[in-house]
C-alpha cells in the first residue's frame, strides 16, 4: 500500500444523501463562500452548506444573480460553492457563457430535474445540464452519492488546471435524496488533493485589464477556438487528476467505465443513476449466458468518443439509454455516440432509447426489454425509440 493510500484511508464512512455529499464536496474543496437560491431538489445542498459556520452563505435573489455573484467570487481567486437544478440552471444560462468565456474555474453541482415544458415537473431529466452543452462548461455525470462528492473534488482540480468551469450532475431525487454509504475523505488530505488555487491561467494573473467589453471578431473567434481545444485537452488533465485521486483515496475514475465489454456482442451505454439499473440487468443477462456489457459515461464534455469505441466498438449492437430528449433529434448522448461511430467508421448498429423522462422510473426489467427488442431486430432500427414499462415504442 502506498503511503498516500494509507493516508487516504483515514476516511469516515457515513450514511448520507447525495445532496449532503455534494455540500461536503464543496466544504472539503475549501469553498469559503456559497451562493445559492432555493430550488427542489437542490435545497438540501443549501441547507447543509448553511449549517457550516466556516462558509459565508449568501442567498441571492434569483439564480441569475447566484451565478453573477459566484462569478465575482471566482474573479477574486476564491473557491465558491454553487448548486442548482432545472429552471434555476436555465435562468443562469446567459451568465454560463460568460463564466466559461472568461475561463473562470467555477464548479457547479446540479441535481437534474425536468424543465417546465408540457407542465411543471420535479423528477429527474438531464435536459437542464445538457442545455448548457455549447457553453464551454465541462460536464460530469454521477451514479452514486460517493461519486457526487468525489467528482466535486476532482472537478475543482480539473477546472482550475484547465481554466474551464465544470458541472457535476446527478439525477434529482434518485441521488439528491437517497441515503447511502459515503466515504468522506479527511479534510486535510482532500484539500491537499484539490491543491492550491492555480492562478496562472486566470484572467487576473496578467494583472489588471478591461474585461467584458466588445471583442472584435478575429480576437473573439480565436478565443472560441482556444476554448474548443482546451475542452478536448481536458481528457489528459482529468486522467492525471483521477490517477492522483485513486492513489490518495483508493477510488478510481475515468471519463467512462466499461463493464463486461471485452466479449460483449451488445453494449448498453448510459449516464447517471440509470447505470446502476443497467448493471443489474446486464448481470442478469450474463448469468443466462448472454454476451452483454455496459459502458457508464462519466463525462459529456469532454465527450470520450474514442475511449467509448475502444471499449465498445467491437460489439455488433450498441444501445444508448438517454434520460433526456432533443425533440426532432432524439437522445442527446445517443447523438454524440452516433457521431463517434461515424467518425471512427465503426460498423456497430446504434439503438437509441429515450427513457425515464420527468423522473419516470427505469427498472432492470425495462432494460431487459430493450435488450430483447435489440435481439429480435436485425434491420436498421428507427433513429429514436422510447422505452416504457409497457415496452418499446417509436
Amino acid at each position, binding site marked *: 500500500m502506498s503511503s498516500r493510500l494509507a493516508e487516504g484511508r483515514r476516511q469516515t464512512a457515513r*450514511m448520507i*444523501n447525495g445532496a449532503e455529499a455534494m455540500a461536503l464536496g464543496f466544504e472539503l474543496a475549501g469553498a469559503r463562500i456559497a451562493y445559492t437560491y432555493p430550488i427542489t*431538489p437542490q435545497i438540501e445542498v443549501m441547507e447543509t452548506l448553511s449549517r457550516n459556520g466556516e462558509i459565508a452563505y449568501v442567498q441571492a435573489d434569483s439564480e441569475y444573480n447566484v451565478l453573477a455573484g459566484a462569478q465575482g467570487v471566482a474573479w477574486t481567486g476564491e473557491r465558491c460553492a454553487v448548486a442548482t437544478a432545472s429552471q434555476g440552471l436555465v435562468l443562469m444560462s446567459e451568465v454560463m457563457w460568460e463564466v466559461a468565456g472568461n475561463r473562470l474555474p467555477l464548479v457547479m453541482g446540479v441535481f437534474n430535474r425536468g424543465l417546465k415544458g408540457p407542465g411543471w415537473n*420535479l423528477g429527474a431529466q438531464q435536459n437542464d445540464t445538457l442545455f448548457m452543452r455549447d457553453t464551454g462548461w465541462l460536464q460530469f455525470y454521477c451514479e452514486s452519492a460517493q461519486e457526487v462528492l468525489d467528482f466535486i473534488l476532482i472537478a475543482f482540480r480539473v477546472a482550475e488546471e484547465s481554466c474551464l468551469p465544470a458541472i457535476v450532475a446527478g439525477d434529482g*431525487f*434518485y441521488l439528491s*435524496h*437517497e*441515503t*447511502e*454509504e459515503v466515504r468522506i475523505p479527511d479534510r486535510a488530505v482532500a484539500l491537499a488533493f484539490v491543491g492550491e488555487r492555480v492562478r496562472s491561467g486566470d484572467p487576473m494573473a496578467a494583472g489588471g485589464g478591461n474585461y467584458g467589453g466588445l471583442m472584435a471578431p478575429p480576437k473573439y473567434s480565436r478565443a472560441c477556438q482556444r476554448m474548443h481545444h482546451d475542452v478536448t485537452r481536458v481528457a489528459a488533465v482529468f486522467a492525471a487528476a483521477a490517477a492522483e485521486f485513486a492513489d490518495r483515496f483508493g477510488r478510481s475514475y475515468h471519463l467512462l467505465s466499461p463493464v463486461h465489454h471485452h466479449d460483449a456482442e451488445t453494449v448498453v451505454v448510459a449516464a447517471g*443513476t440509470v*447505470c*446502476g*439499473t443497467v*448493471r*443489474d440487468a446486464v*448481470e*442478469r443477462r450474463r448469468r443466462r449466458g448472454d454476451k452483454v456489457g455496459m459502458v457508464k459515461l462519466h463525462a459529456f464534455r469532454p465527450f470520450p468518443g474514442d475511449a467509448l469505441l475502444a471499449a465498445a466498438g467491437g460489439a455488433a449492437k450498441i444501445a444508448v439509454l438517454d434520460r433526456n430528449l432533443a425533440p426532432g433529434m432524439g437522445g442527446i448522448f445517443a447523438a454524440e455516440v452516433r457521431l463517434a461511430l461515424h467518425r471512427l467508421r465503426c460498423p456497430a448498429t446504434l439503438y437509441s432509447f429515450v427513457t425515464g423522462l420527468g423522473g419516470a*422510473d*427505469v*427498472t*432492470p426489467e425495462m432494460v431487459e426489454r430493450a435488450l430483447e427488442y435489440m435481439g429480435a431486430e436485425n434491420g436498421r432500427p428507427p433513429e429514436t425509440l422510447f422505452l416504457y414499462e409497457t415496452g418499446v415504442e417509436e
Partner: protein
Amino acid sequence: MMGEGSASSFEIAIHGRGGQAAKTAGEVIVHTLYRKGFSPHGQPRYTADRMGAPVSYAIRFRPDRARIFDRSWVRHPQVVVLCDISLVEQLDLAPTWRPGITVIVNAAPESPGLAALAAFRVARVDANRIAREVGLMKGSVPILSTAMAGAFARVSGLITLDDVLEALRREGTAAVGQNLEANIQAAHRGFAEVEDPVEPAR
C-alpha cells in the same frame, strides 16, 4: 427471503401520512441496518409534502451485505411498515403487494381495516397509543417513527432492539434527537407490544 425485484435484494416499504414521521421511521431503519453491516439505500418518495398527505419511504439492501446498484423504485417489498391503515384503501396498496408478505401495521385491536390485509402476514401494533402515552405528539397527530422501528426490529428479525436504540443515540435525526428519551421509550414499547404475526388466511 430473497426478492425477485432486484437481484437478490431485500426490499422494505414504509407508508404513512405527512406528520406521522414515516420517513423518519425509514431513516431510523436504514441507519440501523447500516450499523448492522448491511449497505442499504434509503429512498424517500416526495409528493406534495403536507400534513395528512400520503408519504412513503423505501429501503433496498442485499442480505449478503453486497453493495446495491439498482436505484429503481422499490415495487415488491418483502416487508411493509404501514403507519396508517386507511392508506390501503386510499392508495389501493394491497394489489401491489405479493401475497404472504409481512405487513407491520399501526392499528387498534379489532380495527375494521385489518380485514383488507387478510392475504398478508400481519403484525399489529397500536403505535398511536404508544406515541400518545410517551408524549410523542405533533398537535393531535401521533409521531410514530420509533414505535414502528421497534416493531420492525421484533417482527423482521433483521435488527435487534439494541441496534435501533444504538442508532437512535448515535445517528438520531434532528427530529428524533429533540425528544430522544421519549423516542427510546417508544422504540422499547413498539418492540414489546407488537403482536406476533398472523399468518395469511388460506
